[in-house]
């Protein structure tokens, strides 16, 4: 970590230079208008300083000028809006094949889990040059994952998954801050993001046994709770489910709609299974009240593991055996 004085933080991600380019433009714009207004004020108040009590002429409304200084700022604003939105959409749209790391915030620490199983606290090791998506949640209050060197920030909201991605471009150690006030030790909820060469990252990952992966512990939980007993015959199978569009009926009104099966949907279905009922192949929704709610029975990390396991169940013959 560079401890010297700087005006902008290190640019250590692919998005950083895009954000800084927009910042530079806005800074120049701010400087231009501030200096323009300040110069006019100083010039006018010197040039037209009161010399006698002769009254200045009546002020007439100049519509051309009024329209000009309404329309010109409007055009400039729209340019900034479009530019800013472009950078934002790029930061938000997770690229295909991004490596997923789970981050759970709690008062006052970050718990991090890598797909291959390695867990860490207040540190996130990532490989250089590979898109990484952070899936973030919280166990208690709202926190926020902030990594200034990546121009990255995303809130950790309890009861919800949020996602944002980055590609680190420079090896080194960078600040990890909690940016949303979360109680007494908010200022202490800090850590490090460590960017490593891909080879070193692999070596670092291998320092841990494979059965501790979210996938492994997710399978163990899936078996232990007997999920597969139902999720084959009376209930929808999990094979190839992730990423599909599914038809579901609203638990209250019975209204049928399509949903995208993603982390958020799976989480909802595990915690509140009766809110939305999947529609069976015969066109009728599965019955209410069969699947129990797992609210309060699973920790955030266990939920992440189960979801990771369900994600891994591709629609291939080999894996059909896992969920017959």
């Amino acid at each position: 970590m560079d401890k010297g004085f700087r005006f902008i933080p290190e640019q250590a991600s692919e998005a950083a230079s895009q954000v800084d380019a927009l910042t530079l433009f806005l800074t120049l714009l701010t400087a231009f208008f501030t200096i323009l207004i300040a110069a006019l004020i100083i010039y006018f108040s010197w040039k037209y300083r009161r010399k006698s009590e002769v009254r200045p002429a009546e002020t007439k409304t100049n519509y051309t000028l009024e329209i000009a200084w309404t329309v010109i700022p409007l055009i400039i604003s729209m340019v900034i809006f479009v530019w800013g939105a472009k950078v934002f959409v790029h930061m938000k749209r997770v690229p295909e094949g991004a490596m997923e790391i789970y981050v759970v915030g709690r008062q006052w620490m970050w718990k991090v889990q890598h797909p291959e199983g390695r867990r860490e606290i207040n540190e996130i090791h990532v490989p250089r040059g590979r898109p990484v998506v952070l899936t973030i949640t919280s166990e208690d209050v709202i926190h926020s994952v902030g990594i200034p060197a990546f121009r990255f920030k995303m809130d950790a909201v309890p009861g919800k998954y949020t996602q944002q991605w980055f590609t680190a471009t420079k090896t080194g150690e960078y600040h990890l801050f909690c940016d949303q006030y979360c109680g007494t030790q908010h200022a202490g909820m800090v850590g490090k993001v460590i960017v490593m060469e891909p080879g070193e990252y692999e070596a670092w990952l291998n320092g841990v046994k494979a059965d501790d992966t979210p996938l492994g512990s997710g399978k163990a939980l899936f078996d232990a709770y007997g999920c597969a007993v139902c999720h084959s015959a009376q209930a929808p199978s999990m094979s190839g489910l992730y990423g599909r569009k599914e038809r579901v009926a609203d638990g209250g009104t019975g209204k049928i709609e399509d949903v995208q099966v993603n982390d958020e949907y799976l989480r909802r279905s595990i915690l509140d299974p009766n809110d939305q009922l999947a529609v069976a192949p015969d066109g009728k929704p599965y019955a209410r009240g069969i699947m129990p709610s797992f609210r309060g029975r699973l920790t955030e990390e266990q939920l992440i593991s189960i979801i990771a396991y369900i994600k891994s169940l591709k629609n291939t013959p080999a894996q059909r055996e896992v969920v017959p």
Partner: protein
Amino acid sequence: MTAINYPESAPVVEENYLNVSYDVKSWLLTLDHKRIGVLYMITVTLFFFLGGFAAIMLRLELATPKADLMQTEMYNRMFTMHGVLMVFFFLIPAIPSVLGNFLIPIMVGAKDMAFPRINLLSWYLYMTGGTIVLVSIIFGGLDTGWTFYTPYSSQFAIGNVILALVGIFINGFGSIFTGLNIIVTVHKMRAPGLTWGRLPLFVWANYATSLIMVLGTPVVAITLGLVVVERLWGVGIFDYRLGGDPILFQHLFWFYSHPAVYIMVLPAMGVISELIACFSRRRIFGYEFVAISSLAIAFVGFLVWGHHMFVSGQSIYGAMIFSFLSFFVAIPSAVKVFNWTATLYKGSIVWSTPMMYALGFIGLFTVGGLTGLFCASLGTNIHIHDTYFIIAHFHYIMVGGTIMGYLGGIHFWWPKITGRLYNETAGKVSAVIVFLGFNLTFFPQFILGYVGMPRRYHFYPEEFQLLNVMSSAGATILGFGYLMPLVYLIWSLRHGKIAGPNPWQATGLEWETSSPPPPENFLEKPVVNHEAYNYHEQEPTPN
């Protein structure tokens, strides 16, 4: 001020609103809008210095990277106190309740507000709310921040959260009643001939502000009420485990609290329009555009709350809509700045104390407004969200804008309110100190935020120290700049020169009555037969 002129023919008014009676009861039970304005002036000043004390403590602590002056619990309580007192008990009531109360009935040529008793009730609600909040702070305090985000405030925070929320809730009604009073007064109490197109811009700005107060404050009152309900009885409104949504709080809170920023700054813009016109001796350039832009800001201000939530998991399209709308607030603000600047052109400009505050306001508001573009733009917002950049930006608006406007207004109308003139040199020196101290305090925070320092941090990495030291040094200067007017203004009460009815030779009904004004403002009902700021028609007076 050299242009002071004692009109020989000015009527000698024996009785004014200050000398009609002297006992405490006549003040505490007064229905006179001017006395209520003075009561507000004394009490908002008290809250300002309490909030300012907290700010100085915070800046002292942040002069070093380590926690050394106070415990972390104390620091968190201190910034909460600073925010709550400054926002709810100083910035929001400052201009509408002090200057608005005192001036709007006189500016429209009325004897009083439309509802004098409700006006007094507003002050009592403000005082009740303020006392409850002070009690909650003295007996333990609270550490939620002035934003009271759930689920921290509703389930996790310890301390007197409920008590403080009750205080803010009660104070909210004071705000609503003041807004209501101003709206009705402007609609129904205008003097003959005072059409909407002839209203002073200060009245327009406060009218727009009052609309926000009446429409917005109930929402925040209900929202804070819901936090109390959830804290007391565990009802699942914001608690996700009971089917609630913590983000719902942010929607409701910012639906009021973003427009609240305009409650703070619009009246200041109104003050600036008066000062610029008077000390340039010109009708304000583009009067209609300045007036309408106040209403436009009030309206658009209600549609942009989502820009406080760009990193809380909002959908991409939701974020894009809120970003798009946020840029529209920039336009009427820019229009005002251009019109004020254009008013100076070919004017007859005097650098009096109020004018120095006004010109300082334009400079600081320009920086505050333009840095708002960084916040409205999605690409840059993510990085600066919840950092010191945001702190710097909104202090440029609230301190550089609202407090400069308030102080400018106090200096401008002080002769009217008290009948005395203060020492101009002391006034000018303090205006310069405030301007320099302000910039030294808050400009480094833009850089501090961009390099990544999060807000509400009690201790921080060492590389942020230099900028923090600059900011703390600036805060000391700024604090001194704020204490100066307190001293020389109080001094002027006894020793200041007699002001006379119109020491600035300003136009406007408030300058056509004596200083201090008689109890019912005018001895004869005024009739208006010209537009505001008709300086070009004013009789030239010898310098």
